[in-house]
């Protein structure tokens, strides 16, 4: 990681690396801070450290410094002290970067290096990094990565010093790390508003010259809703990337209409499996040729009993506290898919299946149907416990301004009338916002 910062620092140290409404950090600034952290880590012989800073300009030097000396850094999500305390205990962290008075007694904050502190001449062979999953299906897990593998994915990125990427993910998320690696490899600029909600994202896009944006479909839906509300027109984005959740064709079409000059890419990636590359044909799902690649391919896929399985040599080493996984082994992704013609279409997650009187219902196709109903800004389909059938399909809806709930309720019922009886929403409620974690809709809970 630090080598990417150094590469830009060597030719243009004053190039903006991180931009916020409050200021700019250059590649030279970040590299100097990273070297200072690397010296401090070496001097204190720290092998593992938690990063509790939430600002990109603080997190990036921590990552780069740790990667320089082989310290396993783990970026924590923005969280209340109680959750930080829980994570420190769960992942056995006794040192931290940034810290706060609430947790300093549990994890010692990294100090500045002494004047005599030096760096080892070589970068170590093993350079671990720990990513926490977003915990959409429960408690976060630690996913062990290695910088050498992570950097392999950006070896062929072309320089693009004029590009400005919005940081819509946290760098603690694997997707955010991917954006950071791409930006640093291209020598581009990261625009990092705080907080990272779509409203602040839209403001940053408009005011800080964002040209590229990678985000979840949920983030994009909220962003489109925010744009409709503020009436400010479509910003001139040149690159739109979606990933992290299933991507409906209707959303791709909408984005194509709103941002006619942007290239649209879909990424299939996960903390555990790494990235399998991107699809740019504008159609929902993956092309069938991702299945059955050559033995030498770093990533291969297959469909087993309706679930996508992957073999990845670019993914994780293993989970925290567990043995390393076999890079040549096949593992289930948890994504339910259906092969339709020459496409692999996503139907939902195994953890999201709703059991309605013994009939297994996938929420995603229903959600896509409801999302297309006029007046629906955002929706979430999930299972609701029922004393009669075990569960029923329920939908929460955020209305667009100017629409009446009774009209939208009738329209939703009409739109879903052709679905099998068990799949029709039996509970329709109108809410101010839907539950998300890491800008992903949570469908597994009631």
């Amino acid at each position: 990681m630090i080598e990417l910062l150094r590469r830009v620092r060597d030719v243009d140290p004053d190039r903006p690396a991180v931009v916020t409404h409050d200021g700019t950090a250059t590649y030279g600034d970040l590299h100097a801070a990273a070297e200072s952290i690397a010296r401090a880590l070496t001097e204190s012989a720290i092998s593992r450290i938690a990063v509790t800073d939430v600002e990109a300009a603080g997190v990036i030097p921590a990552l780069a410094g740790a990667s320089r000396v082989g310290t396993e850094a783990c970026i924590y999500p923005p969280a209340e002290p109680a959750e930080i305390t829980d994570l420190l205990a769960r992942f056995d962290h006794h040192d931290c970067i940034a810290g706060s008075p609430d947790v300093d007694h549990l994890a010692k904050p990294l100090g500045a290096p002494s004047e005599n502190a030096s760096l080892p001449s070589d970068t170590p062979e093993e350079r671990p990094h720990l990513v926490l999953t977003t915990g959409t299906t429960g408690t976060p897990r630690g996913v062990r990565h290695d910088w050498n593998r992570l950097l392999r994915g950006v070896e062929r990125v072309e320089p693009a010093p004029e590009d400005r990427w919005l940081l819509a993910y946290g760098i603690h998320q694997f997707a955010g790390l991917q954006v950071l690696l791409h930006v640093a490899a291209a020598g581009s600029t990261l625009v990092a508003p705080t907080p990272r909600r779509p409203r602040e994202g839209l403001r940053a896009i408009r005011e800080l010259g964002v040209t590229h944006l990678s985000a979840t479909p949920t983030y994009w839906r909220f962003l489109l809703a925010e744009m409709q509300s503020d009436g400010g027109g479509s910003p001139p984005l040149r690159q739109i990337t979606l990933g992290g959740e299933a991507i409906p064709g209707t959303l791709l079409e909408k984005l194509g209409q709103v941002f006619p000059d942007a290239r649209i890419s879909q990424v299939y990636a996960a903390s555990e499996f790494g990235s399998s590359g991107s699809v740019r044909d504008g159609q929902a799902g993956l092309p069938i040729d991702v299945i059955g690649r050559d033995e030498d391919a770093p990533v291969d896929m297959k469909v087993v009993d309706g679930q996508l399985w992957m073999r990845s040599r670019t993914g994780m080493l293993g989970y925290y506290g567990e043995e390393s996984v076999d890079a040549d082994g096949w593992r289930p992704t948890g994504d339910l898919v259906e092969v339709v013609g020459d496409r692999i279409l996503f139907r939902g997650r195994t953890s999201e299946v709703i059991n309605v009187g013994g009939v297994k219902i996938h929420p995603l196709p229903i959600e896509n149907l409801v999302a297309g109903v006029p007046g629906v800004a955002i929706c979430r389909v999930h299972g609701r416990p029922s004393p009669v059938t075990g569960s029923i399909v329920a939908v929460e809806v955020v209305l667009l301004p100017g629409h009446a709930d009774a009209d939208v309720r009738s329209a939703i019922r009409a739109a879903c009338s052709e679905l099998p009886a068990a799949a029709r929403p039996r509970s329709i409620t109108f809410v101010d916002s839907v539950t998300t974690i890491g800008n992903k809709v949570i469908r597994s809970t009631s």
Partner: protein
Amino acid sequence: MTNSTTDVENVIREYLTMVEKVPETFDGDVKLFADGVGLDSLETAELSAILEDHFGNDPYSAGDTPETVGEILRFYSVQGAEAS
């Protein structure tokens, strides 16, 4: 919304109207299942959810299986009596 008899009747009537199963004569004797308006299990589950949304609880979730409109009304009237 209170759980007065009128309010509960209105919610049930609205639901039966929505699923196009409202009887010509709507009163407590209306049977909900096969030999009455013919709610199936999914429609019953839906009615249960709607009643819970309006009144905070419903007879099905409480373990009852009311077979007539009147039995649903009695569930809420007993609750109202116990609360007062």
